[in-house]
Structure formats: structure tokens, C-alpha cells
């Protein structure tokens, strides 16, 4: 952060901020914008854009999601871009391996990643609209640009750091549940999401509550991860979650993008702070 000597009496000190501010608008702002663009381009590159017609160039990624300590659930996931293609599930208790393929006639992808990518690209578009030739006239103009860029970046980061919290009926009727061949058994539900830099998979095992049960039925609210015992109603049947298996695996490139987002957000904020030092200095007029 930049601090100024707050003295209004001597004239050289009054003129200095003017010059310094001009330097800030002419040189420093463009240097920061350049740096931001470089960082964000790097981030955008990680999202391996599937441009139309070039799908075959996407590299296939395999993820093994599993927890070594319990080992109740192991999952092998083959991803193409950010659309999962093939999934092997092994739930230890039932000692059976469930193998699912993602239906080819439907496409399902991790929407979080696409959203984050689009937000980054919008931020890049905003930045490229003000190249070196553009002359910023006021601090407010820079702040306006920074606010717009930061909004996109915060959204991009939030998409990755805050997965959607869903109720169990929402999950049961979501597109993901219809994506598999062979179809998912009726007593299991599955959820994929990104949390920070981790790809998470949750499998819920359900059992039907008999209609004349003595249990107090209370439908569970929306949550990212539901606990065993959570209940819900779907098509006049009442279900209870009996087991929850959660496995996750770190996606290295997601980690990189999160770091890039954080760096660029900080760059933006620092630029805003520099401008605010000047604006508060000029606001500080004596009465």
C-alpha cells in the first residue's frame, strides 16, 4: 500500500501527488492490467477450452477417487475435458463393483468448471477492451474497470469454492441421475461437484421408509453433503439415507487456477487501494 505525507501547507508537496497520480494512471495502471492479463490467460489456459470441432484434441484425464483409511468406496473416473465419460464404482460393503458409463446420447459436464471458465473469459474481455493505447482520465474510471473485473473473478472463484447445495429430491431428479447406463439402482444416489481444488463424489445409499413408520418424518433441507438419517419424499415414497460415502481427489490444475484467481483479485484490490489513497487525499480539503 502507498502512503502519502498528509501536509497541505507547502506547495511542492501539493503538486507532487498530482504528478504521482498522473504516473499512476499512465504507467502503473497499464502495467497492472498487463500483469492481470498474463495471470488470467494462464488461468484460462488451464480450463483447456474445447473449441468447436477440436474435441479430439482434449486430453483424457483419469481420476482415482478413494479414501485409503476406510476404503468403503473407490471410484475411477475418466474425464474428457470436463465431461466425465466412464465411471467405476466399488462399494466395499456390498463387495460388488458397479460399473457405469455415461450415456452417449446425453451430455453431462461439471457445470462449475464451465461457469468458472466463462467468468474468467469475460474478465479477460473486459481487460482487453482497455489496451496500452487507452488513456485513463480519472481514478473512478480505473475503479469501474477493476470492479467489473473483480466481480467476474469473485464469481469464478465462488463457483469453484462453493458447490451448489441441493435438497435430496432435487438431487434425485437432477440430470446427473439419468446419465448412466445401466441406470443407477433405485436405492442409490450420486453427486459430483468441485469443492476448492477437489473433485468430490458422494454416494448415498437409501432405504424406503415404510408408510406406517413410527419415525418422525422431517424432510432435510438443502446441503452440499447430507448426513446419514436425512429424509426426503419423492413420488409419494419416503426415503432415508442409510449410508453416505464420500471420496475426493485433488485436481492439480484446479489448484493452479484458484491460486491465479486469488493473485489477480489481490492485484485488482491493490490498484484500487492506490487510487483510493489519492482520492482520500484530495477529499481532505481544509475547511
Amino acid at each position, binding site marked *: *500500500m502507498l*502512503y502519502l505525507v498528509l501536509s497541505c501547507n507547502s506547495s511542492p508537496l501539493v503538486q507532487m501527488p498530482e504528478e504521482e497520480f498522473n504516473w499512476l494512471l499512465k504507467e502503473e495502471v497499464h502495467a497492472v492490467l498487463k500483469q492481470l492479463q498474463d495471470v488470467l490467460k494462464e488461468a484460462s489456459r488451464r480450463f483447456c477450452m*474445447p*473449441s*468447436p*470441432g477440436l474435441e479430439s484434441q482434449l486430453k483424457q484425464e483419469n481420476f482415482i477417487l478413494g479414501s485409503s483409511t476406510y476404503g468403503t468406496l473407490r471410484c475411477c473416473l475418466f474425464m474428457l475435458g470436463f465431461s466425465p465419460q466412464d465411471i467405476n464404482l466399488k462399494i466395499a460393503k456390498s463387495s460388488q463393483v458397479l460399473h457405469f458409463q455415461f450415456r452417449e446420447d446425453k*451430455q453431462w*459436464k461439471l*457445470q462449475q468448471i*464451465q*461457469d468458472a471458465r*466463462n*467468468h474468467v*473469459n469475460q474478465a479477460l*474481455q473486459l481487460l482487453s*477492451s482497455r489496451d496500452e*493505447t*487507452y488513456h485513463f482520465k*480519472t481514478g*473512478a*474510471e480505473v475503479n*469501474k474497470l477493476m470492479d*467489473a473485473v*473483480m*466481480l467476474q473473478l*469473485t*464469481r469464478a*472463484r*465462488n463457483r*469453484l*469454492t*462453493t*458447490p*451448489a447445495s441441493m435438497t435430496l429430491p432435487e438431487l434425485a*431428479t437432477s440430470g446427473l441421475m439419468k446419465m448412466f447406463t445401466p441406470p443407477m439402482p433405485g436405492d442409490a444416489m450420486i453427486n459430483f461437484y468441485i*469443492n*476448492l481444488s477437489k473433485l468430490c463424489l458422494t454416494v448415498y445409499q437409501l432405504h424406503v421408509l415404510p408408510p406406517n413408520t413410527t419415525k418422525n418424518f422431517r424432510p432435510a433441507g438443502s446441503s*452440499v453433503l447430507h448426513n446419514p438419517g436425512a429424509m426426503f419424499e419423492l413420488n409419494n415414497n419416503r426415503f432415508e439415507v442409510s449410508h453416505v460415502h464420500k471420496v475426493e481427489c485433488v485436481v492439480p490444475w484446479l489448484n493452479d487456477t484458484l491460486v491465479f484467481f486469488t493473485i489477480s*483479485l*489481490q492485484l485488482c*484490490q491493490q490498484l484500487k*487501494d492506490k487510487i*483510493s489513497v489519492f482520492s*482520500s487525499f484530495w*477529499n*481532505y*480539503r*481544509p*475547511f
Partner: protein
Amino acid sequence: MYRDTSHKAFTNIGFTLYHVVSREMCLWDVNDGRCIEFTKLACAHTGIQFYQFTIGTEKEGRLLCNGHYPEILVVDATSLEVLYSLVSKICPDWISSMSIIRSHRTQEDTVVAVSVTGILKVWIITAEVSKMQDLDPVFEEESKPIYCQGCQSISFCSFTQSSLLVVCSKYWRVFDAGDYSLLCSVASESDQSWTGGEFVAADKVIIWTEDGCSYIYKLPASCLSASEHFRSDIGKTKEGSIPPLIYKIAERADKQLLICPPVTRFFFGRREPFHKLLIQGDSAGRLSLWSVPDSTPRQTLQVSSTISLQEAFDKLKPVSAGIIDQLSVLPGKEEPIKVTASVYIPSQGRLVCGREDGSIILVPATQTAIVQLLQGEHMLRRGWPPHRTLRGHRNKVTCVLYPYQVSARYDQRSLVSGGVDFSVIVWDIFTGEMKHIFCVHGGEITQLIVPPENCSTRVQHCVCSVASDHSVGLLSLRERKCIMLASRHLFPIQVIKWRPADDYLVVGCSDGSVYVWQMDTGALDRCVMGITAVEILNACDELAPATVDALSHSAVNLKQAMTRRSLAALKNMAQHKLQTLATNLLAADNADKVTTALITFRNTRKQTSLETGGARRGNSSPGGQFAAGSSEVPASPAAHHLGQVCFTKKRLQGQSYRKPSSTLAPRGLQFDTCGLVLSSSVSFQESLLRQLSLATGRKLTLSDIVGKGAYGLSRAVTTQHLLSVISLANTLMGMTNATFVGEHMKKAPASLCGATPPPSPSPSLRASIADISVIKR
């Protein structure tokens, strides 16, 4: 999640208005400004379009929404319920813009959209599809990459029905509406960035930019279906055929920086003089309208009509008065010194105002309100009301806090203020002495907060200060030192929360990160973000006991009742509020609580109280047509009799006035407050009646309004009006034999005021009040 208002979309259909802010969608009634429906979705919208389905003779409204999700949602226009969605099978991605094409030949309507990656998608909506109610998706009919990234708008030529205009930020293109082949492409000039466009005629397009300019281009022959050269350029170099710019529409005169690009729309007007209209609205509150001629003007087209909110405010006369204007006008200056922070202390009936020159003024609230609202003997005094000035800040005061008001654990004497000079000053409110200056922050103080009740004893005697250098301090008023300074935050502080049981101070920053500080040691315990951060913030809310005091609490409840539109809750709350109001009024020491509520209406009331004064003086009042109107419309009996309460200037002048100093003081706070309430509400009612009479062209009395409802006024506003009328009625009914004419006033000659002041509210007044109070039941 943080709400933002960056993505707004408006569409106006008949009498309803749809408004989208981020993930919320509201349906408004433009007649009275009520929100009829409200929904919140998990995803953010960026665009919205109205579409009317015709199924046989039935017409049903639908809204098509696009935004930060890879489909187009079709929403019922009245219930705002998502009916189904238009989904892409190939390369699904966000839709950046869409357009609905109606075909007269078949029953099919098509939706043409461009995704963010530049793929054109076409969906066909048939009658069956529009009837569909389940959530089965509709897949696209056609998908073609047209390489238009960052598409801003897409529109269909309704003249020839054979071309499509796609506007991107750096170029605009015309496509054949049949097979979507490129007909022409025009790049923008250096700095311009396009935001939208429309066909003006079969061979002309209008394109507008981010900074509010518009250009009209003539399309080349290859784009016109009537021409023999139509489609002759397909596949050739696009650069050769730059269409000529016909003319330009004048830019905004004031080059002030706008928060967001202005919204521009092109309409076909129904009447002749304005056949083709270009309308633009911007964030500075200006609305401009151009009538687009078919012939070519010689130079840039000038604006046909323009208006802005600022102009409307400038016309306002008399200008709304500030609460301490009489103390703030410096000799030789037009504008009074602005009040930048204030706090009202009900227990002392005092108002504390921090000003932009760094001084803090303490005034008795009722008396200062009387100065602004009523005419009377006080007008003869200089420097009235008695006040105290605290000087210590070197520049603008940004926040004032009276901690004793929040919790009795603080010293009754201390008043805390923060300023843009980075300092926090503790004052003795009774002596006006500066007790201590804290200079711990490196930025302007933005907020002063009182920690909750169950903190450690040390923290209990602190106030929490937030500064614009992203730091938070705990300033102990008892020890007169800063016991903790949390200053590692990289982003501006958005929220401060407390976990007193764990001795934690939780700081939420604007980027979504949360810092947990240990208050005792000043150590940073954790810094988290994402879902954990949200959970930590939510957990603080659950644990926090209700620290808000009773008065503001009931206000919150009333607001909730209003938003939930629950009649029972509203009734209950109104009952409760009225009771407290009535008791407050009668109880002497609490009497002035109502003034805070009244001050908000100050402008209307002041204006009307001046008018009544003017009318009664019989002079030509500067108040204009309203005063003239009042002589034709007889005031209601209630207003007439109670109007005497206003001390008119004439009466003052006619009286030989000998002891100005002793008259106001002995009557005390209670008297002042009651006088204020009554005279302001009378003139308020009078103005309401007068406005209604003018609006309906009928002579009205109070019971007419209340008995017959709203007369085309806003229902929402009338609820507020009714509440105030009811509260007034209750007050008056509770005060039998009350009079506000002091002994010295009674000696005034009767001829001067026209009638002798009645000793108590007249029977006719009582009757009309009884009418009002019926509503309460």
C-alpha cells in the same frame, strides 16, 4: 453469496414490469409500485424477453431467460415459475443473447440464440411445446458455429424476414435468416465497443455503443433480399464491403462517468410524429428520446426530448430542508455545511450531527424539528435551538455512536465519533470535553460497532472501529487504548460478526474470505474461504442473541410483515406500534420518540405548513397552485379546527411580544412534541386531501378517503398513509381536553385569527377520527 445489481434486464409489457437482479426476479405492478411476485433461482440471469404464446384463442405470456447457465429457461409470466428449458445437445454453453422470431405462415415460432463460444442455436417452439408443463428439456433444431464471440445482441429483420443482425462488441454482422450464412461484417472504430443494434428499415440498421452513441448504416446490396446482388458476397473477403455510415446520433452532452453502459432500445411508435423511436436510459438517471427520421438529416441527429432525475430535483421548491440547516449556513455561503453522520439519543431527546467540516453539533431534537417545520416565536431568536458544538476532527465526520444507547454497561457520558482524518474521538456528551483521540487506523473510519453483551469484560468496554485500510480495531473506552488491531485483511471489510463464547471476532471481506481473530490475544486464528467461510458466518448468526433494542426490532418486524404481505402480521404489528406510540406520546419522558418518524416526512409537511400559513395570511403565497387550490377546496373540519394550532406569523406580529425567552422553555419537551406532531400531521392530512381532491376532481373529506379506499393512488403508499392517520387518530383520542394554546396566546385578539381557538378537539373532528379508527378492527 453477494448480490449485485450489475445485470439488469427490463421489459415492459402493459402494466407489468419484470426486473431481474442477479439471481432474483421480480414482477412489479407499475401502477402502484408493488412487487407482485418474487422468485430466486440458483443461477444468475443476464437477459429476459417476453413472448406471447397463442394456443387457439388462449394467449399465455412466457418469459425466456438466459444467463449464467447453459440453457434458456421458459418461465410463466404471471407466476414466475420455471416451466421448461431449451437445452443444447451440442456444445452446451451459456447463452449470450437471443431473439424470438415469429412466423406468420406456420404455427411455429423460433428462438435464435448465440452462445458465448459463438455458436448459433435454433429452437422451434410449436403449440405442443408451449403447452408442455413438465421439466422435459427441448433440444435445439440447429446448431452452427458463426464465430461471433462476445455477442451483445441478435435481432431479426421484420421488414424482409430474411436477415439477422448480430452485434458483438468489436464488430457487427448480418446473416441470412434462412441458412445463417454471413452476408456482411463491419468492424468497429478504435475505441468504440458496440452493445446492440436493430433494423430501422429493410436496408438500414442502427447500432449503439457502450458510451451511448448510435450510428445508422446503410446495408450493402448483398444483404438485401430484394436486390439482385443478394447473397452475392458469401464466402468472399468481408472487408471489401464496408457499408456507408449514413448519420450519427448526438452523444450525451455531459461526459460524466456512468456506472454501467446506458440501456438503449429502438421502438416503433404507434403515432405519426414519433414513428421510429430510439430511447436511452443511463445510470445517472437520464432518459433521452430521439425520433429517427426516414430521410437523412444533414448533420448529427439531435435529441428530441430528454429528462433526468437531477433536473427534476433541481426544480423542487422549496428545497427540502436539513434538520440543522439553521445552524449550518455559513455567512456568505449558499449551501449549508452537510451533515455526514448522525445519531439520535431518545433518552435525552438529543440529536447528534457530525458534519463535513469536522464539527459535531448536539441539538435538542424536537426543538430543531420545530424550527424546520413550524412558524412561531422561536423564529425571532438567533442561534436557536440551544446547541453545543464539538470540535476535534480535522475533516468530515463519518460515523457517530452513542454506546450507552445500545448497552447500559457503557458510561452515560461517552460519545464516540470517527472521521476521515483516521481518528476516533471519545467525547463527554454533557461537558463537551474531548476525552481521548485514538489514532490507530491507516484509513478513513467507516463504521463504529458495539460488541455484543456476552463478550469478556475487557472487550465489553470497547467499541469496534472499521477503517477503509481494511483494518478493524477494538478501542477500549475505559483503558483508553486500542486493545486489538486486526489489519491483515487484503480486501475491504464487508461484515463484522462475533463469537463471544469463543472470544472470536469474525471479519468477512468483500472477496468472500473470512478471518477469525482471537480478541484477547489479537492472534489470527483462521483465514478461510469458500463454503467453510459461509458456514462460519452463518453459525455466528445462529448463536447471536437478539441485541437489537425493542424499538428497532418492531420496525424490522413491520418490514417483514410488509414484505411477506401477511395481513394478520401487519395488523398485529400496527396494533402494537400504535399502542407504543400512544403510550409514548402520553408518557412525558418518551414523548419525543415519534419525532424520528416524523422527520422523514419533513419535506411534505414543511411545505404544507408554509402554505396554510400563506393562505391564512391572505397574501399571494409563493407556494403556487397548491395554495390557490386550497381556497377552492374547503379543508376538512378536522384540519380547519386543528389548523389553529399552527402558530401563524401574523398572530405573532400582531402581538406585542415582550418576554421571548421564557415562553418555550417552561412548556417543556412534551408540549413541544405534541405541538409538532399535531401541526405537522394536520397539514400532512390536509395536503393528502388536497392532492386527492385534485386527482379525482371531487371535494373530499377525511372520511371519504378512508371509507372508500385508494382512489387510484398506490396501494402500498396508502397503507403507510393509513397507518399514520390511524396513529394520529389514536393519539388524539387519547388526549381529551388537550390544548396547545399557551396562556399567553389566549390573550391574542380573536379578530386576528378569524375564530377563537377551540379548547378541545371539536365534535366533528372526533367523529372523523372515530371513522378512521374503524379500520383498525
